[in-house]
């Protein structure tokens, strides 16, 4: 009850505070000579959000890069030691390799499935299309840890001879196999691959929604023209539709890659990174919370950050292109 009141108070204080803040700042600026008012007002409008971003994101990010050159307690300068450890210790190398598997599987598979559903459901009746899309989209609303728990049950194991209540083992034994502890099998990275499927399950709907909107934006006359020229539906899809939705596909691949690189919840709640399933975001969490090595945690996240730089550059370029067109 107390927390509830507290939360309510926070909403009132937060919203009220911001309204008052803007009102006061605005009043102050309005007292200035007109010339100064015009000059300063934009900064009043963008000030509070930029202040938050600067103080709680940008500045800490810079500090993090700096801390990655320090030891566990952030006390002694160790130059590149953390980075050397990162790229030579088997445990971290394994984490890097697993990260590669994650960013190879999840974005591509999510986009492929999303495209598949978007294209095929487009041919259904309106109500059926809506239903299909809602179903595929639904996992997006679920917490990652809840999805992880759900799949933990699907991959569950019971001793041979007992009834397999885990679905994968039920199917597997039904086909004549021995029940397996799936998430402990790191041969061929089977456990990591099984875990990536959880994220695909969640992200395919996201891809589907964006792709579906993009496909519906493809001008009908370009399709007509191709049909008149005698192109088959498949040819039309690959030669006419896909080029026109290429930007959306790129946006999706990049957005999902970024998402994968910061999402540790599924692995954390299922294996905790054991059995060779650790990948970069899990390593970061473990270093920060379990090992309590701040320097190493900073190093891991800097490595992730560096991996996102090409995407950052691409996004800025896209934005520039859009602005030039507008």
């Amino acid at each position, binding site marked *: 009850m107390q*927390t*509830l009141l507290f*939360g309510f108070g*926070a*909403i009132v204080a*937060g919203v009220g505070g911001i309204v008052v803040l*803007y009102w006061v700042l605005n009043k102050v600026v309005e007292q200035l000579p007109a010339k100064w008012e015009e000059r300063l*007002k934009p900064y009043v409008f*963008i000030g509070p*959000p930029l202040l*938050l971003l600067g103080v*709680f*994101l940008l*500045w*800490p*990010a810079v*500090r993090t890069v700096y801390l990655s050159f320090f030891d566990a307690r*952030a006390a002694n300068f160790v130059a590149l030691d953390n980075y050397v450890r990162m790229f030579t210790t088997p445990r971290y190398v394994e984490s890097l390799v697993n990260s590669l598997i994650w960013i190879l599987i999840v974005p591509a598979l999510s986009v492929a499935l999303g495209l598949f*559903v978007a294209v095929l*459901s*487009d*041919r*259904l009746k309106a109500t059926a299309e809506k239903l*299909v899309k809602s*179903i595929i*989209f639904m*996992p*997006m609303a*679920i*917490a*990652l*840890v809840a999805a992880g728990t759900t799949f933990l049950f699907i991959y*569950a194991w019971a001793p041979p001879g007992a*009834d*397999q*209540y885990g*679905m994968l083992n039920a199917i597997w034994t039904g086909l004549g196999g021995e029940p397996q502890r799936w998430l402990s099998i790191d041969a061929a990275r089977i456990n990591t691959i099984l875990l990536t499927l959880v994220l695909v399950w969640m992200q395919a709907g996201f891809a589907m929604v964006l792709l579906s*909107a993009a496909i*519906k*934006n493809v001008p*009908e006359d370009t399709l007509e023209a191709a049909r008149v020229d005698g192109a088959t539906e498949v040819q039309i899809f690959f030669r006419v539709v896909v080029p026109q939705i290429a930007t959306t596909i790129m946006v*999706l691949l990049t957005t999902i890659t*970024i998402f994968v690189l910061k999402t*540790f*919840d599924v692995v954390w709640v299922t294996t905790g990174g054991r059995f060779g399933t650790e990948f970069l*975001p899990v390593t*970061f969490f473990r270093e*920060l*919370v379990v090992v309590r090595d701040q320097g190493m945690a*900073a190093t891991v*996240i800097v490595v*992730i*950050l560096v991996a*996102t730089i090409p*995407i*950052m550059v691409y*996004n*800025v370029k896209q*934005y520039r292109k*859009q602005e030039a067109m507008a």
Partner: protein
Amino acid sequence: MSATTATDVGQDEALEGGKPERVPRSKGRILINALLLALCLFWLVPVIGLLISSFRPRDDVLSTGWWTVFANPLEFTQRVTIENYVEVLEAGMGPAIINSFVIAVPSTVIPILAAAFAAYAFSWMRFPGREVLFIVVIMLLVVPLQVAFVPLLRMFVGMGIQGTFLSIWLAHATFGMPLAVYLLRNYIGSLPREVIESAKVDGASHFQVFWRLILPLSVPALAAFVIFQFLWTWNDFLVATIFLRPRPLTVELVQLVSAFGAEWHLLMAGAFVTMVVPLIVFFTMQRFFVRGMTAGSVKG
């Protein structure tokens, strides 16, 4: 997001006008329907399994697969129990529901107004640094939030607010800000210039234009962001486990999993408790949710 409204119209047209020609002959259609049906089942099965298991007694869950209930539906209905839910709620998930709300609601409401002001300035005011600052926002859009964690922890400890709700509101407000500014700028920037200009001719200040014109017109975009941010903060485990002492549902669930490894009847009930609110939000607000997403990225 005028692009999105156009999309919506386009959708209806595609449904009624362009469709019949594109529907292939019946054989192909049966194949398509079968494929989609299979995929939908595949997508639903995890949640159905979870839901059924959460209502079965422990012994049943551990002795037979949840799908066997379809073979003996009568037996299942006789043995249905809410005991699992009672147990997880008493084990800590009850108060955690309140904590989840106390995290998610302010973390959603607080950043939105500030983001709207900034989006307005980025769209309709000219000032030195506008371009550069917006590019910084776009770059921050993809920065993994963890990059701020180590210094932020020290900062919050130094400020004496580490572990409190205040620290998590600040963290969520900040991490959600780039997306909020970006989404809202796309929308507010696409409002018709004449509307804003005519208001200015009538002598309205930027502040008045913002309150009387921009905010009411932006309701769809604001709603989209509210849904995003609410789901994100409700479902978040990472930020909560690091910056907050009281436990929200997600953190409770992870505790439950590590405490009761194979007590599936409890884990499934616990997982479902965390999902109820997001699923309600999702199914009632799906339309806004979809619009918000398409507004962000389908632009030209």
